[in-house]
């Protein structure tokens, strides 16, 4: 049995040797596949609005940060499992997510829009420029009706586990044939290939794709906000109650929420968020 003991011990040591060397750093999870919010360049480096904003916020907090890459579909579970301490991944603040995690104040507005390829019969849909689902009213209802009609029988593509998917499945636009993808990049590919008749995502995700690929992707219909679309994008954090409010980790999580809120206040006041938004989105999406 001796050899097994030795092997077991070796196994444990090799595991525990990787005990976080970054214990005092804030670990921030991002997807790296949602340009221009966050993405990767050809040398594998994480880039984008949120990556730069994360560095800025960490400077305000006065603590070192590590940015961790995480696939979107595992983002919230990974936060809960403490693989990282905060999410900055274009994640909108929604009631549904608030059941399992908490959010800092919003730092940017995500404006959602439908997109089609040029020549689609959805072009020229007559709707107001933007609708806010939280406000409601006859204008919003009329627009939703128009969209319901336009989407009927179409394959609508979107990323899995997003506000966009929630909206399409909410019944606000009738029963839609939704197809979901792991990343926005994949949605874009299938929009261009024609497998998707129409796609829904952040408007900037489409304009960024159209610009970089040269593909004739056009936004149609209104821009969406409110309701299923949440209240802006914020830093996702663990609920202090998850690890017990009196536990060391719980206290740390609560402190981190305060620190991020304060840092966002400062970054906003100094114009850092606006400046980064204009740099990456082409307009001021800060909030």
């Amino acid at each position, binding site marked *: 049995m001796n050899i097994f003991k030795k092997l077991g011990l070796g196994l444990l040591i*090799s595991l525990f040797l990787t005990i976080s060397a970054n214990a005092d750093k804030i670990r921030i999870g991002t997807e790296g596949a949602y340009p221009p919010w966050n993405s990767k360049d050809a040398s594998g480096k994480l880039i984008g609005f949120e990556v730069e904003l994360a560095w800025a916020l960490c400077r305000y907090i006065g603590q070192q940060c590590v940015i961790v890459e995480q696939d979107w579909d595992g983002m919230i579970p990974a936060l809960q499992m403490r693989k990282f301490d905060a999410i900055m991944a274009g994640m909108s603040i929604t009631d549904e997510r608030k059941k399992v995690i908490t959010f800092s104040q919003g730092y940017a507005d995500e404006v959602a829009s439908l997109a089609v390829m040029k020549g689609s019969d959805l072009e020229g849909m007559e709707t107001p420029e933007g609708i806010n689902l939280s406000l409601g009213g006859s204008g919003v209802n009329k627009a939703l009706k128009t969209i319901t009609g336009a989407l009927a029988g179409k394959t609508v593509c979107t990323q899995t586990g997003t506000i966009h998917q929630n909206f399409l499945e909410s019944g606000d636009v009738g029963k839609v044939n939704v197809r979901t993808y792991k990343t926005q*990049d994949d949605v874009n590919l299938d929009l261009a290939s024609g497998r998707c008749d129409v796609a829904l995502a952040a408007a900037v995700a489409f304009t960024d794709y159209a610009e970089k690929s040269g593909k004739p992707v056009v936004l149609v219909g209104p821009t969406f906000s409110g309701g299923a679309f949440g209240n802006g994008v914020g830093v996702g954090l663990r609920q202090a109650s998850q690890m017990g409010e009196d536990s060391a980790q719980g206290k740390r999580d609560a402190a981190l929420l305060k620190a991020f809120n304060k840092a966002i206040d400062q970054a906003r006041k100094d114009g850092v968020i606006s400046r980064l938004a204009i740099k990456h989105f082409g307009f001021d999406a800060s909030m």
Partner: protein
Amino acid sequence: MELLSFGKTGWGDELIVATIMTLAVSVTAMLIGFIFALIFTPLKLSKNKFFNLIANFYTTIIRGVPELLVIYLFFFGGSSAIMFVGSIFGYNDYIEINAFLTGAFSIGIISGAYSTEVFRGAIQSIDKGQFEASNVLGFNKALRFYKIILPQMLRLSIPNLSNVWQITLKDTSLISVTGLVEIMRQSYIAAGSTRDPLLFYTVAAILYLILTFLSMKIINRLEIKYNRGY
């Protein structure tokens, strides 16, 4: 072709690093699998029904559930389990297992189940007379295992282990959830970023083919070497 160039604008150097990563994580997973197999093979061959049950539980589940699910379960459940163990010892902080080890372990668990079956088959095909002979010669159990069973088991296992190696190598394409940048994840990132999936997935396929081709050559040599004298 510019997309595959080296340096800051091309993905060539990244893909080569990713290929090395695939190779490294496969080899590590294979070795971890051997450790699992060395633990579970004796359990499988044991006369103790309870030990049999444990070993069969392991090999049946791992070989009956999609690799993708095993990897997800290990990724999400593994760190919780380790932190639970840590908390028993009073260590409540986050324990980070890096992406490489997470990937290697999740594939290693799978690879180990296949290796267990291979080792079991190999031991069972060793001539019974040798066990008796070693008893007559007064070998104790440990000595018998190291000097007689183990060397033969390894030799008899080589052909089937080469299958396990191929499975292991290809399974690493599924560990992208752990964030480890191996061939598949790198091609996925490159395909997304350059919007040229055909090029990058074809390159990925070629890289895997090169790896399987070269490793088969090496394994064949080993087989010839260890079969000398038989």
